[in-house]
């Protein structure tokens, strides 16, 4: 168990809130019709990205997924440029060419969200191989879902990372569902972390809605990776609050289950309770933090709205370097 400074914990709390309010705003905007394409929200899963990325340095890498906003924010992404991207603006991370599923910020190690489930895992092998070859002591974290753990790319990547002893931590966000498919119907093990044994690597399953547990476990595994001792697999059990995408009719699960999760297992409420209890931060300050977070999201939205769309003549640029 690592000792965490109060400051660090407050930072993590801020990050979780930022993800929460960013996603709530994105949801509003989708429902208003301001955002096109499929948008997959990270609501309810904030502790995972936050706990894991809190262990990373700026130049460490992550590969992310179609449900990537949370990873991006936790790794230090700029929510104004994110919002601008999601609204398809020139000032967005990808000039409006990528949208929600392709946000990337190479400068701070975000090697991209990915529209292909399981598509990021092999890329993380390459990034980790690069860190090892260039002897930079950087580490890679590859996020993916429970559904993705059934892709062949998962298997090839973990095996190769293990054989080559690469500095990469595979973080499975088990939010119980892949679109409509419950994990029990698609995945032949109860704990995805069991699959670590297929690669002779460390595997852990933790309560993914407990940010401190996520942090502590991730820290341990990331340290191992950084020391050159190879990859590992961390499963964070969490729950997807929303439909697969905003607008999903969700014929496959009942509202009560979702409501129960929201009311009893909100990672932010849990962390807030802990911090207030432990007197890490007074309740009054929490209100202030929330207000400030919403202000940031307001600003991001304003920035995005006020930005322009890329001139269409530039649509065929950016293919080749």
């Amino acid at each position, binding site marked *: 168990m690592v000792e965490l400074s109060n400051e660090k914990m407050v930072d993590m709390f801020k990050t979780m809130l930022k993800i929460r309010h960013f996603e709530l705003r994105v949801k509003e905007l989708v429902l208003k019709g301001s955002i096109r394409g499929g948008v997959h929200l990270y609501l309810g899963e904030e502790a995972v990205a936050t706990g894991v990325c809190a262990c990373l340095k700026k130049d460490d890498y992550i590969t992310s997924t179609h449900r990537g906003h949370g990873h991006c924010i936790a790794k230090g992404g700029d929510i104004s440029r994110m919002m601008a991207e999601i609204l398809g603006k020139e000032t967005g991370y990808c000039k409006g060419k990528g949208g*929600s599923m392709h946000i990337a910020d190479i400068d701070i190690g975000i090697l991209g969200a990915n529209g292909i489930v399981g598509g990021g895992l092999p890329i993380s092998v390459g990034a980790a191989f690069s860190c090892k070859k260039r002897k930079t002591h950087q580490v890679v974290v590859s996020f993916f879902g429970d559904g993705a753990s059934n892709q062949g790319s998962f298997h090839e990547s973990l095996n190769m990372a293990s054989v080559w002893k690469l500095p990469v931590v595979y973080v499975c966000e088990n939010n119980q569902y892949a679109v409509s*498919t419950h994990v029990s119907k698609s995945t032949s093990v109860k704990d995805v972390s069991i699959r670590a044994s297929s690669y002779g690597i460390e595997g852990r399953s933790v309560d993914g809605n407990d940010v401190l547990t996520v942090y502590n476990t991730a820290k341990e595994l990331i340290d191992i990776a950084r020391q050159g001792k190879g990859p590992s697999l961390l499963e964070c059990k969490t729950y997807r609050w929303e439909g697969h995408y905003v607008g999903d009719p969700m*014929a496959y699960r009942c509202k009560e289950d979702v409501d129960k999760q929201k009311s009893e297992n909100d990672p932010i409420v849990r962390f807030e309770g802990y911090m207030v209890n432990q007197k890490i931060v007074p309740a009054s300050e929490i209100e202030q933090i929330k207000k400030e977070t919403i202000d940031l999201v307001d600003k991001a939205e304003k920035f995005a709205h006020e930005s322009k769309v890329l001139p269409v003549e530039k649509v065929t640029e950016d293919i080749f370097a």
Partner: protein
Amino acid sequence: MAEKTFAEALREAIKEEFLRDENVVLFGEDVGIHGGAFGVTRGLWDEFGGKQLFDTPLSEVAIAGTAVGAAMTGLRPIAEMMYLDFITIAMDQVVNQAAKIRYMFGGKAKLPLVIRTPCGGGRGNAAQHSQSLEAWFVHVPGLKVVMPSTPYDAKGLLKTAIRDDNPVIFIEHKLLYGTIRQDIPSEEYLIPFGKGDIKREGKDVTLVATSLMVHKALKAADELLKHGINVEIIDPRTLFPLDKDIIINSVKKTGRLVVVHEAPVRAGIGAEIVAMVTGEAFEYLDSPPRRVGGLHCPIPYELELEKEVIPDEEDIINAVKSL
């Protein structure tokens, strides 16, 4: 007769074939209660779930392989790839196994399998969820490639695909599912492969269009008529086997050819059609054939940018006028 959407027509085809032959099965990601990403199998779960309709794990290789293995051993599988883009993951099973097994085995196996999959852009799904890759499959001996443009065609062709003893790649444009309605006969019908359809008769220019582009071509044709150009629109419906005759006969009449598809122009199916026509009806061509297709870039996310990349009525009109 009853008016149906494209998705409903497909659903009817699946249901009828399920009932006709219990060895017809359909599987894929979230095709069960969820009804598939575009609702094609919605409502079928109660009657067929677990018997002929199956949800799979998120495993495109295993999905395609299951189709191959099931087809070789007595079933008539329909595998759904949630987006055509994801078939990239399963190309070994499609190209090296499904397409080649019968040949490699000296004619010993039958592979009555269909891979149904949605293609195309226009929904802001960006580069990894918007491709049109039909040209790849046309290039692979051993595959049949179907790309319907109307509910009527979709139903008749899907039934034919299911009854065909060979691997069929059945590509459905996402924007067709809910937007197009058409009267469909209540009696059973099948549409044979290799028979194109003249979607509009004309005499001045032959416009070969596929899938969603047929509808854009029809609109463009209305506009062009105002300029005194009477366009004939041919929908090949199946890209392999291709109805060469219907295209060549039309070109013999019009002397002019434009091919329109959503995929990028370069090495697209338009190249094949142009090359085929110039090879077989060169002397009938009064002007160089033109191709209209996607710009040479991945499909971008934002609306205006995406529109710029995907061909529209105006692009078709301009191409025809430029002849």
